[in-house]
C-alpha cells in the first residue's frame, strides 16, 4: 500500500478580474503517492499551471485542502523543489553558483566548498560538467533547463514540481531532455519509497506518457479533472522501443481523444487549434 505524499481535496481557485469572477480550477481532487511521477495534461488555459503554482506555494488564495505528508500546505516549503519553464536560474550567478545557492537554502550546515563540490557533481550528471562557470545567458535554453534540473536534484527535496520545463525547447533537444529526466528520476531510487515524487505539467502527450506513472487530464472552463489514467508501461522505459509498440499507439490515441473531446465539446466541433 503506497502512502499519499500529496493530497488535493476539493481544490477551487477563483480569480476576480475586473469585477468578474473567473473560475480557474473547480473542485479538483486527486492524490500523488510517495515516489510517483504524475503528469498533469490539458489544453492551454485549463488551469494546470495554476494548479502547480498552488502546490508550489506561490498561489495561496485557494479554497479546499492540500496536504503534503499529511500536513496542510502553508506557502513554499523546503520539501518541494521547482523547475519553471523560464528563469529557474538567476541570471547573475554562474550555473554552479546557482546550484550551490539552491543547496544552501536546504542544507545550511554545508561549507561553501562542499556546496560547490555537490554542484559540480550534479552538473556532471546533467552533462554540463564544462559549463559550471558560464552564466545562464551564455547557455542555450536546453542547457539552462539541464542546470535547473541539476539544481532541483542537488537540493534533494522529496518532491519535484515541474511547470512545462521543456515547452520552450526545440523538439530534438526536448526528446533528449525527457530521456535525461527519465534516467535521472529512475536513478533517484529503485523503489517508490526512495524515489522522488514528481508532479509534472505539460501539454505534450508523448512527454507525459514516457515519463509518468499516472496522467491527470484536466478539462478547461472551469479547470477540473476529467480523467486520471494509469500508464501501463513497465520501467525502465526506452523511448524508441516504446513508441513502436501497438499498445503505445492505442494508449496515445485514447489520451488524445480525451484531449480533443474536451475541446470539440467546448467549441462545438469546429476546427481545433491546440
Amino acid at each position: 500500500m503506497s502512502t499519499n505524499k500529496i493530497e488535493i481535496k476539493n481544490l477551487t481557485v477563483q480569480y476576480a478580474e475586473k469585477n468578474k469572477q473567473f473560475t480557474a480550477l473547480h473542485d479538483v481532487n486527486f492524490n500523488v503517492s510517495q515516489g510517483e511521477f504524475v503528469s498533469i495534461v490539458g489544453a492551454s488555459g485549463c488551469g494546470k499551471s495554476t494548479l502547480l503554482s498552488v502546490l508550489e506555494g506561490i498561489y495561496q488564495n485557494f479554497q479546499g485542502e492540500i496536504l503534503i505528508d499529511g500536513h496542510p500546505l502553508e506557502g513554499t516549503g523546503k520539501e518541494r523543489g521547482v523547475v519553471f519553464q523560464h528563469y529557474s536560474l538567476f541570471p547573475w550567478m554562474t550555473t554552479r553558483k546557482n546550484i550551490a545557492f539552491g543547496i544552501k537554502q536546504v542544507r545550511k550546515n554545508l561549507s561553501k566548498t562542499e556546496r560547490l563540490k555537490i554542484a559540480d557533481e550534479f552538473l556532471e550528471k546533467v552533462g554540463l560538467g564544462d559549463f559550471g562557470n558560464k552564466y545562464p545567458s551564455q547557455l542555450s535554453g536546453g542547457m539552462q533547463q539541464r542546470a535547473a534540473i541539476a539544481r532541483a536534484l542537488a537540493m534533494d527535496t522529496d518532491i519535484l514540481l515541474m511547470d512545462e520545463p521543456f515547452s520552450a525547447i526545440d523538439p530534438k533537444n526536448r526528446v533528449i531532455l525527457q530521456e535525461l529526466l527519465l534516467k535521472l528520476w529512475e536513478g533517484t531510487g529503485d523503489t517508490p519509497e526512495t524515489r522522488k515524487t514528481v508532479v509534472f505539467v505539460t501539454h505534450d502527450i508523448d512527454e507525459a506518457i514516457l515519463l509518468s506513472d499516472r496522467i491527470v487530464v484536466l478539462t478547461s472552463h472551469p479547470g477540473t479533472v476529467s480523467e486520471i489514467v494509469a500508464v501501463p508501461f513497465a520501467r525502465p522505459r526506452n523511448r524508441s522501443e516504446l513508441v513502436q509498440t501497438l499498445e503505445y499507439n492505442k494508449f496515445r490515441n485514447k489520451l488524445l481523444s480525451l484531449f480533443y473531446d474536451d475541446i470539440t465539446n467546448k467549441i462545438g466541433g469546429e476546427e481545433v487549434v491546440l
Partner: protein
Amino acid sequence: MKINIKDYLFRLAHLLFIGLIVVQFLPDQSGGDSYSNYLIGFAVAAEILTLALTAFISKKESRNLFLDIVGFIYAFLILWTLATSKLNLLNPSLFPPFGKILAQFGTDWQKILINIKSSVGIILQGFLLACAVAVPLGLFLGWAARAGNAATYLSKFFSSIPPIVYIPYGIALLPTFRSVSVFVIFLASFWPVFAGTMSGVLNVDKRIMDSAKVLNVSKPELLFQVILPASLPQIFLGCNQGLSVSFILLTSAEMIGARDGMGYYVKYYSDFGDYTRTITGLLVIGIVVIGVTFLFNLFQKRLLKWR
C-alpha cells in the same frame, strides 16, 4: 595569422597624417608664431601610437573604427591649421593655432592637473555619497511597496528641481565652496540613482521573484542576493545619468564661485580674453569626462557581465 600590410599601412588616416605634416611647412600668412613644431610633435606621437595600437586590435571592424576616428582628428587639424596660420581666415585671438594650445598645455599642465584633481575629487565625493545613500534607501523603499509608491511620487517632485538652483541655498548652509559643490552634486546624482534603484526593485521579473520564493530564501538573501543584482542594470542607468549631471553641474558651479577646478580655469582665462587657455580648458574637460565615464563603464561592464 597572416598580416596584410595594405590593411595596416595604406589607410586614409595615415595619408591624412602625411597631409597634416606637409601642411605645416606651407608659408604662414598670420603674423605670430604658429607653434607648428608642437603640432608636428603631437601628430608624430599620435601616429606612432596609432600604428602601435592598430597592430594590437585584431578585429577588423574595431580597427577600421579606430583609424576612422584618428583620420577625423587629422582632417580637423589640417582644416584648423589652414584656417588659422596658413590662410589667416579666422580671428587669431579667438582661434589660436592648434600648436599654441598644445604649447599652452605644456606650460600649464601642473596647474591643469591641480584643477582636474579638485573637480574630479568633488564629483567623486558627491556622487559616491549619493550612491551610498540612494541605493540602500531605494532598495528598502522599493521593497516595502506601499512606502515605495509614495516615495516615487515625492522623488519625481524633488528630481524635477534643477539642482543648480540649490547653489545659493547651499552657500547659505555650508561654509566652503567645496562643501557646497559636494552637497549640490550629492543632490543632483541622488535623485536619478534613487529613481533607478526604485524602478529596478519594483520591476524585478515576477518569474525571478517566484524562483526565489520557491527556494525559500531568507529575507536578507532575497534583498541582497536576488533583488539587488536583479535591479543592478537599472541602478547603473541611474548612476550614469547622475554622473553626467554631476559634471554639468560642477563645471557650472565652478564658473560661479570657485577658486579652482576646470570650470574655474575656463571662466577665469576667458575673462582675460585668453582664449588659448579657454580652449585648452574645454578640451581637457572633454578628456576628463570621457576618462571618468570610461572607467565607470568598465566597472559597470564587470558587474553586469552576466547579461
